């Protein structure tokens, strides 16, 4: 009796464990347009999952931007409809949602995804279906590098740009012996490769660990890092994982022995860092406090009331620029045809009220990568600018300077006949 019961439970339990599959297929969130033939933008982002904080910010900004556009006549005089789909941080789900948006909802444009792997996978769908596609926030290099597509434009930086922008500062200030803690997926791998390339050029040495993307406990890796005695610990993790790594780094007293740094940091994450753990040198892809750029203040003042009176983050900026770029491309092309829009946006310099940056910014023709400014600096405890004044910009690196040439990325754009 007992063994039979135990056997039944075990089988049930094993079946149950095997059945843990997280695909969620829910209907899209739609901002309804009033026009008869709205311009449809399908936005795929991981609203659930470990990158949800960033995705929710992007979606929040996209909704706000669409509202502003519709108040001013939309795109090509047609109102804009935003259809948001959750990729659930899963590549299969993201691809399935792309098919749904294109084939069933007949969207004119696709945006997404925060997750580099998903963005990369969606590219395959949009290229096949010849749909104009903007990647607001997926960083892995091949998207505008060796696997670039004529229909895909990217707003956020490549990992090569972020790594190049901050490497010089870290080497100059702290030294050339580094230890990497990097997430083991597309973004992390290309980021570390680029850091290593730059570090080797500077004559540096390194060791490092590739860890699962949602790794929660970093004690084992930090023990290794401490034994290596590096000048700099590169925390390349993202979201909550980046935050936990930072906290444990400080708790273990390692801040006294080595510097902390990395490529991309996000204000969404920084807000959650305990005061004592606010340390390190990082890259922000956009920063809300740019006293010398009047358009930034206008943007910040306009969007803040719609986002809980907080300061906008780089993710707000990415979604805003992406949608505004779609508008600019469509209006220059006078069409929503993907090929015409892509030609129109290639090498287009964004106006200051769209770029919100100190230098000239354009989607480079050679790889469709936005050449945006990169803000390198140090995390700080809240400054005079309020609770979101958590980053002190040390230097602004021009995107063109950090990116190298389009040819170097390996991108060769093949336009459709």
């Amino acid at each position: 009796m007992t063994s039979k019961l135990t056997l039944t439970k075990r089988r049930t339990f094993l079946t149950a464990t095997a059945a843990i599959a997280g695909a969620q297929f829910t209907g899209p969130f739609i901002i309804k347009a009033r026009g008869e033939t709205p311009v449809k933008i399908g936005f795929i982002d991981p609203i659930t999952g470990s990158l949800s904080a960033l995705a929710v910010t992007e979606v929040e900004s996209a909704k706000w931007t669409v509202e502003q556009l519709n108040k001013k006549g939309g795109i090509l005089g047609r109102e804009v409809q935003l259809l948001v789909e959750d990729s659930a941080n899963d590549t299969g789900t993201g691809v399935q949602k792309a098919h749904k948006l294109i084939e069933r909802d007949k969207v004119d444009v696709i945006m997404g995804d925060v997750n580099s792997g998903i963005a990369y996978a969606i590219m395959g769908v949009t290229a096949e279906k010849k749909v104009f596609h903007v990647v607001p926030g997926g960083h892995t290099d091949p998207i505008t590098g060796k696997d670039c597509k004529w229909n895909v434009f990217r707003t956020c930086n490549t990992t090569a740009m972020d790594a190049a922008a901050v490497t010089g500062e870290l080497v100059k200030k702290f030294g050339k012996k580094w230890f990497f803690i990097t997430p083991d997926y597309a973004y992390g791998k290309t980021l570390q490769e680029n850091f290593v390339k730059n570090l080797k050029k500077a004559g540096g040495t390194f060791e490092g660990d590739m860890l699962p993307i949602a790794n929660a406990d970093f004690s084992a890796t930090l023990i290794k890092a401490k034994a290596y005695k590096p000048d700099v610990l590169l925390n390349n993790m993202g979201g909550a994982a980046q935050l936990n790594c930072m906290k444990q780094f400080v708790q273990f007293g390692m801040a006294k022995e080595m510097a902390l740094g990395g490529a991309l940091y996000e204000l969404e994450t920084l807000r959650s860092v305990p005061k004592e753990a606010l340390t390190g040198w990082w890259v922000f892809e956009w920063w809300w406090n740019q006293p010398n750029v009047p358009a930034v203040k206008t943007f910040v003042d306009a969007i803040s009331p719609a986002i809980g009176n907080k300061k906008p983050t780089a993710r707000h900026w990415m979604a805003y620029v992406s949608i505004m770029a779609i508008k600019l491309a469509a209006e220059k092309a006078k069409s929503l045809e993907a090929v015409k829009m892509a030609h129109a946006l290639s090498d287009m310099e964004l106006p200051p009220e769209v770029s919100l940056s100190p230098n000239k910014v354009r989607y480079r023709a050679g790889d469709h990568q936005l050449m945006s400014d990169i803000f390198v600096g140090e995390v700080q405890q809240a400054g005079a600018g309020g609770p979101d004044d958590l980053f002190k910009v040390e230097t602004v690196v021009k995107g063109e300077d950090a990116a190298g040439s389009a040819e170097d990325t390996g991108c060769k754009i093949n336009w459709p006949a």
Partner: protein
Amino acid sequence: MLQLVLFNLTNGLIVGTFYVLMALGLSLIINLSNVVNFAHGNFLAIGGYLAFVLTPFIGFWGALLVSPFLTAILGFVIEKVLIRHVYTRNHIYSLLLTFGLGFILQDICRYIWGPSPLPLNIPQSMSAAVTPDLFFITWYRVFMVAVVIVAVAGLFALLRYTRVGMRIRAGTLDLETVSALGVNVPALRSLNFAVGSFLAGLAGVLAAGQLGLNPNMGDDLIMPSFIAIIVGGVGSLTGTLLGGLLIGVAAALTTVFYPSASEAVIYVIMAVVLLVRPRGLLGEEGMLS
């Protein structure tokens, strides 16, 4: 290298004790009610978020005491309202119910507290390392291990020396006979589910103090619990204890040699155990034997 291995062995035991705490609550519910509670990780998250709400009013220590009880009450209510209806049905009902419940609880957390990570502030003195040499052992981690030891000892004492505990143990072995002897089985199951939820809530507060809070924290932490139970043996709390420690140490030691596999190694252990000894390491022994 030896020092690195020893450090990671110790570290693995610390991490493993946390897995034990999570897995014991889950195991308790499986053993008596035959319900694989996929929402267990979300109860953990709820426990952490409740502590986040309570801390400004009653401090961390107060939240540590109160939050698990509130989680237990929530578990008790959910068992009464939802879970108890699927006990007599095919197992797939309870799987689907708890799986869906997990998503609902996660979205409730996301709706109320937002998707961004939140910190749970612990007393400053707890963040410091015990000694400069053992830099990875902070006072908070020591405290966490101590709490887990007390909780596990308390649970085992409850099950061995109290009337309710004896009924739970008996129900695990033969629920029909226990029912025939006049024990109020529905009440026993509700209480048992509440105790499991209490342990999830306690794990949530402890995890939040170290890792902070986010709506997905339960998902990130729950799989090691399932694996601890499978490795240790379904039906054996002692096995769950052993399984938790084993996978904690394995993950930590793997980080020394092949960090990318630090997550995969626990699945490999599970596969090996299932192939070599399908009932788990102590599965045959039964609870507390």
